[in-house]
C-alpha cells in the first residue's frame, strides 16, 4: 500500500537559523538526485526537547500537528534535524502506545480539524535513511563525479538520529553514515565516540560541561587522524564547529578541524558548486575536499 510514497521536507527551526548550510546542501543534493520533497506547508516547531521539559502534551501536540498536515496529503516526512526526527517519531509512537496521550492529542486535533486526517500512517524519515534505503548506495555511487580518495573522515552520528526510535540502523553501533561517506571514496574512521552526545543544548547553558563533551569528540577525531568530521545534525555541527577556538583556549589544544554536514560532502563528490552547498557559512573551511591531489 505504501509503495512510491511522496515526501515533505520538514526543515525545523535550526535549518532556518544556524544551519542554513544544511538546508542548502540537502536541497541541492536532493535536486541533483532528482528526489522531490517540497517544504511541509505551514510547519511548526517539532516541540523539541526543551519544550518537553515544560509540558509534554503540548510538545506532542505540536509534533502531531506536523504529522497530521503531512498525512493529510498522503506524504511522509523527511526531517534532517536529528532532534526533530526523534521528537516527531516519539510523538507518533506515544500516540500509538498510550491511550492517555492519544485521547488528549486527538481532542486537540479535532479542534483544528485535523483529527480525521491523522491515522498515524505517516512515516518520519531522516535523509540518511532516504539515501541508503530509497535512493540506494549504488545509485549514489553511480552519480559521483569526484572521488574523495585520501580524505580521512570521522563520521559522527550523535545521539538522536540513532536513539531511541531508529529502525534503519543499529542504535548501538550504526554504520549507515560510514557506508554513505565511503561511497564518496573517502576513508571513514572507526570510533566508539560516533554516537556519543556532543553536549547538545548544554553547550549554551553549562558551557564547561557542554564544551568538554564536544572537545572529547574533536580530540578523538584528531587522535585518529581525521581530516574532517561529518555530521547529520545541526546542533552537533554547531557545537563541534563554532566553539573550537574557545575550546583551544580552555583545553590548551590545537583543533581547527572542519565540521561539515554529510549532505555537503556528498555535494562535493557530486561536484555541486560550493556556494550551493553553503560552505560560505563554514567557520572552518574544509580545504582538504578541494585539494588538487584528490583529482
Amino acid at each position, binding site marked *: 500500500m505504501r509503495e512510491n510514497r511522496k515526501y515533505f521536507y520538514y526543515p525545523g*527551526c535550526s535549518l*532556518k*537559523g*544556524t*544551519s*542554513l548550510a544544511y538546508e542548502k546542501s540537502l536541497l541541492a543534493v536532493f535536486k541533483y538526485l532528482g528526489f522531490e520533497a517540497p517544504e511541509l506547508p*505551514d*510547519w*511548526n*516547531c517539532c*516541540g*523539541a*526537547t*526543551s*519544550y*518537553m*521539559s*515544560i*509540558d*509534554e502534551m*503540548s510538545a*506532542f*501536540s*505540536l509534533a502531531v*500537528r506536523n504529522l497530521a498536515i503531512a498525512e493529510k496529503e498522503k506524504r511522509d516526512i523527511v526531517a534532517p534535524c536529528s532532534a526533530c526526527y*526523534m521528537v516527531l517519531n516519539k510523538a507518533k509512537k*506515544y500516540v500509538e*502506545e*498510550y491511550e492517555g*496521550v492519544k485521547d*488528549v492529542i486527538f*481532542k*486537540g*486535533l*479535532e*479542534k*483544528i*480539524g485535523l483529527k480525521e486526517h491523522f491515522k498515524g500512517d505517516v512515516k518520519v524519515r531522516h535523509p540518511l535513511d532516504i539515501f541508503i534505503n530509497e535512493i540506494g548506495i549504488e545509485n549514489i555511487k553511480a552519480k559521483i563525479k569526484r572521488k574523495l580518495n585520501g580524505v580521512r573522515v570521522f563520521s559522527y552520528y550523535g*545521539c*538522536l538520529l540513532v*536513539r*531511541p526510535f531508529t529502525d534503519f540502523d543499529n*542504535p*548501538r553501533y550504526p554504520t549507515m553514515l560510514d557506508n554513505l561517506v565511503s561511497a564518496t571514496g573517502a576513508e571513514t574512521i572507526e570510533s566508539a565516540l560516533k554516537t*556519543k*552526545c556532543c*553536549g547538545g*543544548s*548544554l553547550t*549554551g*547553558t*553549562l558551557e564547561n*560541561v557542554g564544551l568538554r*563533551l564536544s572537545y572529547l569528540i574533536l580530540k578523538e577525531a584528531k587522535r585518529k587522524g581525521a581530516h574532517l568530521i561529518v555530521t547529520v545534525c545541526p546542533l552537533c555541527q554547531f557545537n563541534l564547529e*563554532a566553539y573550537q577556538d*574557545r575550546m583551544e583556549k580552555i583545553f590548551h589544544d590545537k583543533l581547527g578541524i572542519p565540521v561539515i554536514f554529510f549532505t555537503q560532502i556528498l555535494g562535493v563528490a557530486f561536484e555541486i558548486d560550493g556556494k550551493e552547498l553553503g560552505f*560560505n*557559512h*563554514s*567557520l572552518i573551511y574544509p580545504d582538504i575536499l578541494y585539494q588538487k591531489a584528490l583529482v
Partner: protein
Amino acid sequence: METYVRTIKYEKELDRSFTKEILSIPGCEGLTNCIQCGTCSGTCPVSIYMDYPPRRIIAMVREGFKDEVLSSKTIWLCASCYACTVECPQNIKITDIMYALKRIAMRERRYPKGFPIPILAKAFFDIVSNKGRQTESKLVMNVWLKISLLKILKNSLFGLKLLRKGKLHFKEEKIKDRESLKLLLEEVKK
C-alpha cells in the same frame, strides 16, 4: 570545629505519592523494574557532573525521596541523548523519567535559582507557544538577558562571528496559522 550532617532517613519524610505520580506518567511505568546495575550511569555522558547518578535517582524516586530528587542538578544535566534508555537491561525509559522530573520540578518551582537550563526551556517554550517556530537569535538573547548581561558582552564577539557567517540572523520565524496553534495548545492543556 566542623559540623556533622545527619543523613538518616525516616519513613515519614518519604513521599510515596510522588512515586505513584511518576509511575502514572506515560513512559515511566518501567521504573519499578530497576535492578540497580548502573548501566545508565555508565553510558551517560554527563553523569560525571551529576550530584546523583541516574541509577540513584531511579532508586530514590522508587522510594519516594522527593526533595532530594527534585532539587538535584541531575535532572537538569540530562542532555536527553537516550543512551541510558537504549541500554537499560530492563527497558526502563530513563530519559522520559528525567523529563517527567523536570516538569514536576518546574511545576513546583524547585529548580536551583538562576540555573540556566530551566530558563532556556522556559524561553524556548514561550517563543514557540506564540510564534509556532523558534528564532534562535531571539532565543539566545532572551536566555542571556535572563542569566546576565555580562554573558551577552562575553559572547558578543562570538555572536558577531556567527552573524558574519550568516549563522545568526534576526528575521523572525513564525507560522501563518497561529490561531489554530493556539486552539490546539489550549485544548490539550485542559
